[in-house]
């Protein structure tokens, strides 16, 4: 167990920069998820922490030791690859015990620790099998087991669940979280699934194109995304983003969207109101109201999608399609007009130029 610090870490492949100066401080025992769209450099960053990729610039330290020039085996980390990377010529027990064997631990201790880990992960009956004789989910657990028998300073996970089906993924998600909680090992977990990121992490690092866009606790990111990218990336269905400007008339505020729709606002609009802005509102912060309610607006329903727990209504504001999530059962047909209202406390404003949050 140890803290993990990245200080202005950079990476270029040849002349192509891929990671542009990333600084993250991860506390001892913390579970941090690294999210971002495909190709943003998550795996690269993780591999740099593991020592599998040389570092172009900056510093990485584990504990209080700078590990820039240490080989992977000297960093005391365990990694789970997206593809599991089980040794096909070794059985499950040998796969799990290999690191301990290389560390020249006594055979008895290796056996004990492998058995313990197998117990935790329900792998005991499979210890004698070869990876080829396992299902995808079992392989995933072996890969996990191989990491936990080590008791390393840091766990590195690179999308370990992405090859599993949805149900198994949810189950494993909880299991990994619980496991980490118990072991209290500092963990960096890469995923491009924002739900995985939200549910598992103590803190989330959102990356885009080699840059850290925001670091924060899950709900922090959800409630106050620092820019348009984070706002649209976190949350499903995604936050509605409407470009337009704020107009004031006789003390009343309105948001005028690019398509010309006018939406009533309250007084809590940001200072730079005359400029072009992006108004952000999450689907669950728009509600259906009765006709004639103050501060509401009418809009045509394009599509309704009942998911069971809630119903998603797509509607159009000016030229922008928005999604509204409502929990109550209701009857609106496609093509009907409906009356909507914003939850004013949950509105977000962003600068349309640079996408940064305004407050």
């Amino acid at each position, binding site marked *: 167990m140890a803290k993990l610090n990245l200080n202005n870490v950079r990476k270029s492949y040849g002349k192509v920069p891929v990671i542009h100066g990333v600084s993250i401080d991860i506390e001892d025992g913390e579970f941090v998820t690294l999210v971002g769209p495909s190709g943003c450099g998550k795996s690269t960053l993780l591999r740099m922490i593991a020592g599998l990729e040389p570092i172009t610039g900056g510093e990485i330290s584990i504990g209080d030791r700078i590990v820039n020039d240490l080989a992977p085996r000297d960093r005391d980390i365990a990694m789970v690859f997206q593809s599991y*990377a*089980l040794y*096909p010529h070794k059985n499950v027990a040998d796969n799990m015990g290999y690191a301990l064997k290389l560390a020249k631990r006594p055979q008895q201790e290796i056996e004990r620790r492998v058995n313990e880990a197998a117990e935790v992960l329900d792998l005991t009956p499979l210890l004698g099998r070869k990876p080829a004789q396992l299902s995808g989910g079992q392989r995933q657990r072996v890969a996990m087991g191989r990491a936990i028998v080590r008791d390393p300073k840091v766990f590195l996970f690179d999308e370990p669940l992405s090859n599993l089906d949805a149900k198994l993924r949810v189950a494993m998600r909880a299991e990994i979280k619980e496991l980490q909680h118990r072991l209290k090992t500092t963990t960096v977990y890469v995923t491009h699934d924002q739900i995985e990121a939200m549910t598992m992490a103590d803190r989330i690092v959102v990356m885009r194109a080699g840059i850290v866009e925001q670091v924060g606790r899950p709900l922090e990111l959800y409630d106050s995304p620092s820019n348009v990218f984070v706002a649209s990336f976190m949350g499903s269905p995604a936050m509605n983003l409407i470009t337009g400007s704020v107009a004031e008339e006789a003390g009343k505020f309105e948001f005028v969207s690019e398509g010309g729709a006018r939406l009533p606002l309250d007084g809590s609009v940001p200072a730079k109101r005359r400029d072009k802005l992006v108004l952000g509102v999450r689907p669950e912060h728009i509600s259906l109201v009765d006709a004639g309610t103050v501060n509401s607006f009418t809009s045509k329903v394009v599509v309704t999608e009942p998911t069971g727990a809630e119903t998603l209504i797509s509607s159009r504001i000016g030229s922008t399609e928005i999604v509204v999530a409502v929990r109550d059962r209701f009857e609106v047909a496609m093509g009907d007009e409906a009356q909507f209202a914003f939850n004013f406390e949950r509105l977000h404003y962003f600068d349309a130029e640079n996408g940064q949050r305004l407050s």
Partner: protein
Amino acid sequence: MSASQADPVPETKKSGSVLDERSKFMLGRVLTYGILVLAVVLIVFPMYWMISISLKLPREIYRTPSLWPQVFTLENYRILIADKGFLRPILNSLLVSTVVTVISVLISSFAAYSMVRFRYRFKGVIGRIILFAYLTPTSLLFIPLSILMARLQLGNSLHGLILVYLTFSLPLSTWLLQGYFRGVPRELEEQGMIDGLSRLGALLRIVLPLSAPGIAAVSIFTFTGAWNELLLALVLVTSETERTAPLALNYLITSDVLPWGPLMAGAVISSVPLMVLYFIAQHFMVQGLTAGSVKG
């Protein structure tokens, strides 16, 4: 096959179709085995002929060729080993072929690994040159090579022969092994390095074991090539003590006299090491060694 679907014949009805199915099956079997037997005979007969001649007396060899020796004799072997000193060339050949194989596997493993895993300048060009070197015919090279060996003071020596054989075996070995190494997922090695291996350790303990069929193939190919090679040996080796087995057999023929008995005895002895090698290597020629390592 289609007949069974077409008519589900009740047993009472006397019909040829059940029998047809059976006889079709039998016919298939007979054909399969017939062709296999033919192939086996084609391959085995020359070997049988070689062995049987090596066990015959000269008068029997030169008279009517019979399938089975009337008198069994080890005289040919005695002549070959005792009179002609054939053990020496066999040992020379064993030495040369083994050394060439070991060095070849070692160097080509490292070369192939570097071509597969590392990124450096001119890698593509080097790769093509390697392949090109392999494609150059031996007959074009034996004179330059013999001059080169003479200049290096390595003419007429087993060292020189080893060096020359390596120039032929290395390109193909490297090229073959590249293919096998590519089949080993990179993550496996990386996992190994995280688990505590150095890069060299990962090569030796993960990549090589998983490329065992490749190593076996390369070993067989290299060993057989060196073992059977005659042309270069003929040019490079002159003294009697440095002769390899094919060369010694070649020297059994004096002007137009062909001592068939000892020649075939020599051929039999020469085949034994190859058979042993093939037998061992066969165990490593397994497919799907990397199955189950990555993905679900």
